[in-house]
């Protein structure tokens, strides 16, 4: 049984780590996110019984875990202060632009923060985001518009 859990770790833990590192900018925090998710699966494996692929489950679960961690009052200031210099983890948008959006994640309402991660950190399609959020594609479009409005009104966190 343990080998099956370890097999799941080998096939999907890197996805959790990579995304957590991109959102949190801390290797230690990203490793903790990996540990928390796999411990949670070990205790409650029924979490995997939803629709979608195992990969999409880990996308959603790691996004929730990272946003919760950012919102943790004790961690937020430390993460944003200590990691003010972006660490390049490759891929989508340039690190400096993600930095300001990352700072905004803690102020965004939950669905908008998730949409921001999927649309701008992962560059997923609206169809893919609708599957991860469990809502319609039209609703995703509305969330994106609200996100743009929010960013127009907000000041960059300095």
């Amino acid at each position, binding site marked *: 049984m*343990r080998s099956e859990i370890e097999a799941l770790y080998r*096939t999907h833990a890197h996805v959790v780590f990579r995304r957590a590192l991109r959102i949190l900018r801390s290797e230690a925090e990203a490793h903790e996110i990996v540990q928390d998710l796999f411990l949670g699966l070990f205790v409650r494996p029924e979490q995997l019984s939803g629709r979608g692929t*195992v990969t*999409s489950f880990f996308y959603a679960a790691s996004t929730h875990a990272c946003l919760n961690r950012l919102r943790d009052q004790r961690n937020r200031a430390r993460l944003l202060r200590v990691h003010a210099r972006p660490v390049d983890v490759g891929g989508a948008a340039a690190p400096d632009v993600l930095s300001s959006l990352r700072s905004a994640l803690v102020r965004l309402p939950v669905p908008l923060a998730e949409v921001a991660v999927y649309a701008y950190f992962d560059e997923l399609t609206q169809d893919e985001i609708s599957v991860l959020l469990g809502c319609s594609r039209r609703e995703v479009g509305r969330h994106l518009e609200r996100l*743009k409005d929010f960013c127009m009104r907000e000041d960059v966190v300095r």
Partner: protein
Amino acid sequence: MIDLPALTRGPDCASDLQIDEWLGNELSPAERERIASHVDGCARCTKRHLELSEARAAFLEAAPLPRTSRPASRRLFPLGLAGTFAAAAALLLMLRPATTEAPGTRAKGTARTSFYVKRDERVHLGHASEPLRMGDQLRFAYSTPQPAYLAIISRDATGKRSLFYPSARRAERVEPGDQVLLPSSVTLDDAPGDEHVLSLFCDAPLDLTVLLEATTPFTAPPGCVAHELRLTKETRR
């Protein structure tokens, strides 16, 4: 005002989610074919596929098993909790990869390897018929629908055999996946002629010593499925 970043992915390009699902062997055959075909012809997607594959390999090298740096009460796999083994059994049922092939389709036999070529700091997905050169660095990727013990051995035109993967003389376990990068790379030497590369997907951790001896046939031993590549070396003038 917070400037939202411009997207770097084209409308037809594969998303990270699709590439991750591809690496995790979770795509249907039609989706896999479509994405592989696009990646093959798209520099942006080839690069991103390589980045995600390398990130996977690097993570597993650094953390092959879940870390246990926390206090014992928060270890990832707590011992002595009988109920968790029942939970693990339930997890086992849910871990079965989505069935993407029609009933009766042979899963075995589709295991294969491909390779990336690095030359002059540029990387591309290699093709068996392309002329390769001395100094080219090759990095192999494997695809298998089920766990297997993998070894990659080459034989040059002189008959000399080399072990490309793993580093130890015993086939190493790999998990199911599609186009999963292996952690090491090889550099082609100046030996003339073609390289015959044999990728073995075995049922057990095969001792490779005998196969590496020059006198044995260069074919798959019992318990192994072989995928063969013929690498053509460019003749320098």
